[in-house]
């Protein structure tokens, strides 16, 4: 629009004011139009985005992108990063940088799907309040939250796989693989799929206390870890209410030292046979194993027999000599080949070369004669071949020494079995859905692996166990994210670039300018 007066016309003050007002209105309209176009350009249907990097560094893996796009609500991501102490400081810094980059990409690709809060640890009071709200006790974590459910990802455990390095040759720890995308995807999967699985812990038979955080044998820390992982865990007095509620996904029986009533065992068997999930950690009291109505008698019906005695192995003393006869011999540390590399409970541990501690654990054996038809019974954890089954004496005491005559030869024992079978009485009346239903039972030789004293090193095993039972083991296979670095290794290239950038180009420019000035003057 052009505002031109007629030739020779005189412009009055009023006309000038009027034209000024029109121009101001036009500018306002133009502003509104610019805002409108900017807003429209941000609409998902009208927006196109192309990642031009060769390694697609700015695009989420399709599996993760699909998950995010399906989320109905904004996914909350709180991250609490702080420097780690040496020698993990460099690794932690790198992991934090790459996780921030990943979250930046996620926000850039799906601006309306995420709510990020990068907690500044300089404002300690505010951070502590938020950490308390989220039930966190440590920093360097990422908390993924959706619809009231949350999952905590630990930076150096869930987000990166670390090579420990070798202090002897001054090799620092390093990042073997950045698994942030996979961890984020699985966290979103956990918070977005279905309701929080409910876990009932039986009480009234001498079991460990679910809320005991004081003693090393309590289960208080397990309760906290399960809550942080999106489970709802409650006590169940099966004597008072011998029926498992419909919304319960898992029943856990940890260290039941007294026998169950017939109705209780029937309720548990019926629960499993209709597609329920059962976790049993055998009683540490050898005498209770022999009772006909013990929980161990129930798991025999699912194909697993809890044997008397505990599994022990020699331990190294301060001089590196292997010794026996110590209480510590009863703690089996299983890792590597002792873990099943294919089963969802142990696969990630095996892959990450992690170890799991099993203190005071009974050996387990298959009981195929009583196992349900079509049951898949997998021994997922075994003790080393140097271990033996230590039997108690007449007073019920262990000597932690191998006695081949009484206890048999040294050899590997099974410490945990995972049983999976089609339920004889499926819940679903739909034939197709019933076909897909599965009952799952996980049996461990002892409950100490779940107790407060062992939870930190065993956390992954413990959570994997509950996730497998709850059928939340669907780990999205997302390849480790590539860090596409174009490194200039050669010093001579750096020197050449230095010369080109600092002298070559500016000098060429100055010379060209001088030449032009000289020619113009001439």
């Amino acid at each position: 629009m052009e505002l031109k007066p007629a030739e020779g016309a005189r412009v009055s003050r009023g006309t000038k004011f009027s034209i000024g007002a029109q121009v101001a209105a036009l500018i306002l309209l133009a502003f509104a139009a610019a805002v409108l176009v900017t807003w429209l350009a941000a609409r998902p249907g009208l927006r196109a985005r192309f990642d031009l990097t060769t390694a697609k560094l700015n695009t989420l893996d399709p599996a993760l992108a699909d998950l995010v796009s399906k989320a109905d609500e904004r996914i909350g991501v709180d991250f609490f990063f702080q420097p780690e102490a040496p020698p993990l400081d460099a690794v932690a810094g790198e992991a934090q940088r790459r996780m921030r980059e990943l979250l930046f990409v996620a926000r850039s690709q799906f601006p309306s799907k995420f709510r990020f809060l990068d907690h500044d640890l300089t404002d300690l009071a505010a951070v502590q309040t938020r950490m308390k709200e989220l039930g966190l006790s440590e920093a360097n974590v990422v908390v993924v939250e959706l619809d009231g459910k949350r999952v905590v990802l630990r930076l150096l455990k869930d987000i990166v796989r670390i090579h420990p390095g070798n202090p002897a040759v001054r090799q620092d720890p390093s990042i073997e693989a950045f698994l942030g995308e996979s961890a984020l995807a699985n966290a979103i999967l956990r918070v977005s799929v279905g309701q929080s699985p409910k876990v009932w812990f039986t009480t009234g038979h001498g079991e460990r206390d679910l809320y005991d955080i004081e003693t090393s044998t309590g289960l208080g820390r397990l309760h906290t870890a399960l809550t942080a992982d999106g489970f709802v865990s409650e006590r169940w007095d099966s004597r008072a209410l011998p029926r498992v509620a419909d919304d319960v996904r898992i029943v856990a029986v940890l260290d039941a030292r007294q026998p169950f009533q017939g109705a209780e065992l029937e309720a548990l068997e019926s629960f499993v046979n209709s597609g329920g999930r059962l976790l049993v950690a055998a009683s540490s009291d050898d005498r209770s194993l022999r009772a006909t109505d013990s929980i161990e008698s129930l798991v025999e019906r699912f194909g697993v027999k809890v044997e008397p005695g505990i599994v022990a192995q020699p331990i190294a003393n301060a001089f590196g000599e292997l010794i026996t006869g110590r209480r510590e011999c009863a703690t089996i540390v299983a890792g590597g080949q002792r873990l099943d590399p294919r089963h969802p409970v142990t696969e990630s541990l095996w892959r990450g070369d992690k170890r799991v501690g099993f203190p005071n654990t009974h050996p387990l054996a298959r009981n195929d004669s009583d196992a349900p038809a079509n049951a898949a019974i997998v021994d997922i954890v075994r003790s080393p071949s140097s271990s033996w089954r230590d039997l108690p004496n007449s007073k019920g005491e262990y000597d932690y020494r191998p006695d081949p005559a009484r206890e048999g030869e040294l050899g590997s024992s099974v410490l945990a079995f995972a049983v999976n079978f089609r339920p004889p009485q499926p819940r679903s009346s739909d034939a197709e859905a019933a076909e897909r239903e599965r009952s799952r039972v996980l049996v461990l030789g002892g409950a100490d692996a779940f107790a407060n004293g062992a939870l930190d090193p065993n956390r992954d095993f413990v959570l994997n166990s509950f996730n497998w039972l709850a059928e939340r083991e669907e780990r999205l296979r997302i390849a480790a994210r590539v860090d596409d670095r174009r490194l200039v290794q050669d010093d001579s290239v750096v020197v050449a670039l230095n010369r080109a950038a600092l002298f070559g180009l500016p000098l060429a420019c100055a010379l060209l300018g001088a030449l032009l000035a000289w020619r113009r003057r001439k």
Partner: protein
Amino acid sequence: MQGLWTIYRRELAGLFLSPLAWILLTIALFAHGYFFIFYLVGVTGRDLRAAMQLALAGDIFWWFMLLLPPLLTMRMVSEEARSGVLEFLLTSPAGDLAVILGKLGAATTFMGILWSSVLVYGGCAHLLGVQPDWIPALSGVLGATLVSGLFSSIGLVASALSSTPILAAFAAVVLNFIVIALPSLDALLRLPPGHWGKVALGHASVVSQYQSSFGIGVLDSKHFLFFLVWTAFFVFIATRLLEKRRWS
């Protein structure tokens, strides 16, 4: 758009025939080169891809944006108005819009030449055996040139407002500062998450729009349009201000 090409050529020739442009370009190339090497060796651990990215999106980039476009555009309208050249332009067959677009094109081209220096560094590295990620680098130069267009258009508005080049440059620096620092209001006001003001400031953030697209090797229609639309808005204002001179 009669006369646009003529005015563009005239402005470009005017820029490159004046010693100011060459002095600016030499200093800017030196500073840009220095920071490229600093990013390469001191920040990214010799990662060429990241250093090229930072040279086109790091802190120094925004300092250039704050200062260079005002110095380039300060004389484009105000000096010409003072010397009377603008009278000839306004009475020529070229329209006001063509005048502004021609000047904007010249200033943006100058800035584009500066940003293209990153491609020269990449070319040197390529010749020496380190392969840069070319496509994101090219999109970075394109984005940097687009952002330069936005800041140059702001400079033209300032130049059209004032008849003194230094004043115009000062006003443009202040306006550019406001545009760059506007989202910092969010931190100052401590707006809670989800507050409409926070959301609006987020949408108005030139820095974050640039850094989440061209700055990281992404071509996003939202951000591309953002820079085009707001450049057009300031071109519109500059054109109206130029037009106002007919009446005053």
